[in-house]
């Protein structure tokens, strides 16, 4: 998976599951303060990401460190790389 794929597919999750306009989906956007997600929405986000990328991240401690959309792109890429090893 390329970085562009990770960005495109993550943005699709935000657009489809949360109906957030694409112009707001910037790598530096804070998912809490800028995009308006809360802890319960994060649960929905994790489920949607798992479905989209066919991965299991629910119990991954690194999810707790995610703050920005860019963090999610990098997290997805890291997970995918780990799976391909």
């Amino acid at each position: 998976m390329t970085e562009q794929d990770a960005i495109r597919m993550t943005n699709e999750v935000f657009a489809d599951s949360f109906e957030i306009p694409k112009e707001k989906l910037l790598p530096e956007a804070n998912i809490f303060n800028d995009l308006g997600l809360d802890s319960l929405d994060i649960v929905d986000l994790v489920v949607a990401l798992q479905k989209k990328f066919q991965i299991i991240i629910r119990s991954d401690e690194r999810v707790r460190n995610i703050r920005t959309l860019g963090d999610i792109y990098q997290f997805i890429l890291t997970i995918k790389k780990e799976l391909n090893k």
Partner: protein
Amino acid sequence: MRILKIAYLNITFYFLTVTFLLTCLPALGSLIIIFALIFPKRIVMKRLRRAISWFGAVVIKIFPWPLVRLSYKDFSESNIPGPYLFICNHRSASDPFLLGILPYEVVQVVNIWPFRLPILGVVAKIAGYLNVRELPFETFFIKTTKLFKEGVSIAVFPEGTRSRDNSVGQFHSAIFRVALESRIPIVPLCITGNENIPPVGSPYLRPGLIKIHRLKAITWDKYRSFSPFKLKNYLREIIIKETALMDQRNV
């Protein structure tokens, strides 16, 4: 002159509030105990919650008058039967008292600080007010759903904390998840003018006009297809637009 007004306002307000609290509370407490011996718990709770509303209305409408005035406008238009979920913006510590103007049995979902208020915190706890910080979502869901089924309206400040710049903060989604399951009419309640009554971090009230606009209820037919995220932002947008107009108009 302004300092004198503020001093007069605060001396009279706090004197009357404390006196009222100290004289009415023993009477109310005795009445509730007598009620509890005679009537079922449901009726006792109903009376207690209405008594809290009356207390809030008296404290905020009468004690600071005429230096603090209250303007309440009801734009709800239709008579959709309750109970309701009131969604309010949050600028001041006076917000929970303002909800006393609502003519219903209401339980407020509040942050931890109102429970720490002397006397009032204990009364709020007895009346079943919900501390959103201490409840896991599952418990919150069960308690709020039960209240709606009993016909009790719920008022929530979904920002969770007071705004420091009059903007409307991001909303928490917990109560909107309950609304989607309970199919309850949601009423936006917009409050402006009380950002200095009192200001954040100060106990001192300033003179001013508090405006409350009750907007048209949003029924389940309208929001049934929404996700919790979309629903919370839909309500937030409505409140942002209305409070901006209320701030501009200054009426």
